[in-house]
């Protein structure tokens, strides 16, 4: 059974000890490097991150500033052309990446923090607490997430902060369910029972015994959540609910989509950027899965 494999594979060194040894991490890394797609994803992602971090230092053009005539095609005036106002598309890509990737990362963080907290409490204690929390999770799950995020953004204003929080607030239920399932599975295992028998507090068992063993799937989910959050931000911007004061890839598509026939470059370049970012993150998630999942490990 996979249960045995998990506990025997990665969890054993972590479970009772106060600090995991270095070797499993290194083993996972080695494992990750075996995965071609994982490497490809990591490389693309690093390139995109490097572009958003260092690009603004090299390319000094305000993405909100009007630099040339509207719909100047890619060329000498503007390397990737200009949009409907005459703003530089390349500047938008370079500067907009920061907003897009930050929204993705922070929204994913919010998703995971809320999800893991709710899932941990629900899965560990069970009973009435579990029933109540599962109802809450279900309540959020039955709301169409994009619609719910739109309502939040409409109510609290179109700023990047609200958009980030809104995405986090609508995406946590799946993380909560995942964590809860892991806890339900792990809490009956022998090493958990023994640690409880040894007099460990609930807190200790939850955070130091079960949670580290439940982490692998959560890490993968978190990685994928970044990709989903980026798509979410793009979706909201596409529907006209982006923050008009912060350039982001989603905003570029959302604002320019009416003009796609007048200037394909206004939409294609940011679209490609989003595509690459989400693809890279998915590949990295896959790589993690390969590295952490003991079943796949044996194949190599």
């Amino acid at each position, binding site marked *: 059974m996979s249960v045995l494999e998990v506990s025997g594979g990665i969890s054993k060194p972590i479970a009772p000890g106060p600090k995991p040894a270095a070797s499993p991490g290194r083993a996972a890394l080695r494992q990750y490097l075996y995965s071609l797609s994982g490497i490809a994803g990591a490389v693309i992602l690093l390139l995109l991150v490097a572009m958003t971090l260092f690009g603004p230092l090299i390319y000094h053009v305000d993405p909100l*500033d009007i630099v040339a005539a509207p719909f100047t095609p890619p060329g000498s005036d503007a390397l990737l052309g200009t949009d409907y106002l005459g703003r530089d598309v390349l500047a938008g890509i370079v500067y907009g990446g920061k907003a897009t990737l930050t929204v993705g990362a922070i929204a994913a963080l919010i998703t995971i923090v809320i999800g893991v907290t709710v899932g941990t409490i629900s899965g560990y204690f069970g009973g009435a607490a579990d029933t109540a929390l599962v109802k809450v999770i279900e309540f959020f799950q039955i709301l169409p997430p994009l619609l719910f995020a739109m309502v939040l953004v409409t109510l609290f204003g179109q700023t990047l902060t609200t958009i980030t929080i809104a995405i986090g607030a609508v995406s946590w239920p799946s993380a909560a369910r995942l964590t809860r399932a892991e806890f339900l599975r792990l809490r009956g295992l022998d090493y958990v029972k023994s640690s409880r028998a040894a007099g460990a507090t609930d807190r200790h068992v939850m955070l130091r015994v079960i949670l580290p063993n439940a982490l692998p799937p959560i890490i993968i989910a978190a990685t994928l959540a970044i990709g989903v959050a980026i798509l979410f931000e793009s979706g909201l911007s596409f529907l006209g609910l982006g923050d008009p004061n912060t350039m982001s890839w989603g905003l570029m598509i959302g604002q320019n989509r009416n003009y796609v026939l007048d200037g394909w470059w206004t939409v294609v370049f940011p679209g490609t950027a989003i595509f690459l970012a989400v693809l890279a993150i998915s590949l990295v998630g896959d790589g993690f899965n390969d590295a952490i999942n003991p079943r796949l490990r044996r194949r190599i």
Partner: protein
Amino acid sequence: MRRKIITMLAAGLIAGLAFGAAHAADRSTVVIGTTQVPRHFNGAVQSGVATAMPSTQIFASPLRYDDNWNPKPYLAKSWDVAPDGLSITLHLVTNAVFHDGKPVTSEDVAFSIMAIKKYHPFQTMLAAVDKVDTPDAYTAIIRLNHPQPSLLLAMSPPLMPILPKHVYGDGQDLRTHPANLKPIGSGPFKLAEYKQGDYVVLEKFDRFFIPGRPKLDKIVYKIVSDPNAAIIGLERGDINILPFVSGIRDIERLEKAPNIFITDKGFAGIGPLNWLAFNTKKKPLDDARVRQAIAYAGNRDAIIKALMGGKATPATGPIAPDSPFYEPKVESYKHDVAKAQKLLDEAGYPKKADGTRFSLTIDYIPGVNEQQRNVAEFLRSQLKRVGIVVEVRAASDFPTWAQRVSSYDFDMTMDAVYNWGDPVIGVDRTYLSSNIRKGVIWSNTQQYSNPKVDKILAAAATETSPEKRKALYSEFQKIVVNDAPIFYINVAPYRNAFDKKLTNLPTTIWGLMSPLDELSWANESKK
């Protein structure tokens, strides 16, 4: 196989014949596409284009206008304004009847005028009217408390539909009267069918009081929710007239379409202005020099050329360029960055170490991106160059925007306001200090207050000499443009698009908001 081909050919032939037949029947019908859904058809209690278009076909009005602002006889065959300006006598035609066969009399005119005064949203329109006397069945004398020369324009088709007293005078509230949806008027067309949110069918009224009219048998207002679908429908010939086209790319597309005639005539009456309004009570915008600086930095010419493809007319002041009261000799705020910088320095807002002076927010009406959002974003970029940091505040829907602006929770906002013909009807409301009414959108939300302007507008509203009146409005425009509570940008680039085979097009100042009794299909040469 061959059989199949023959069947297909036959099917094609039948379809072609059917199409031809339908096309022939179309010769007496015109389909007008519209994206706006009318709440009802009673223009006496409801303003707006959606109601006015069908309402002006169903109801006749005392006067109508040509394309040069001249009043023409309609239900009133003639009219006299008393020398003291305190009464207007209407001599009605004697052969006009309502769609139910009852004659149109002075009683109906009196009833309608008092109803409009009571219920119509444009409260200044009939402000001077005291009562209407009816010495005989075909004479109505409008008695005024003070002269109001704008009254003649207020008798236009979209503003003064004559209602039958015997239908609407039954004591029910006119705003919710059941006959608003089953209207009976005396106009060239009568309502045949209305499917809410889908279509309105109007049929020729056989006993219309002008002989030989209307030329058409039927007008169908087809409600199309998607503007793109409306454009395609027009190109395909499913729709014959598309009013109020304003998208730059739509206009360019229709200008190239071989079967379409597109014109900017027909909007002089409404005078739709697009502008940037300032909250003149909020620092630093309380200083006229700051507002002027923003106007100098704004670059109206670039907005019209680059953002609107040169399809819009520049607006230079509170009165639209098509109006007879328009004064072109005002400060034009031609793009001048140095002057803007100087004005800001003088106003006491020097550039700080980081190159900025102060921050402002700008709002815009959601949903009309080309006229509103794009201009707001353009201005953000322009104003940055003179050290003003602008944050664009998006509103998710119209009520959110209206709430912010009418409760003065804004620094600057893009806005679109119509002149509605005479300044008294649509212009005064934006500048009179008495119209600073919190919570009312399109009142004086700039909170602009200049006693001199108040005085001039009050005088112009009652001035009966056209020359003197024009001079007063001239002065008003110069003062307001100088005080700059508003940076005027452009006239909304509205166009009416017609099937090329239609003739006698409605190009009067009210365009499609006037009776289409002369509109017809051109005689085709033999088939």
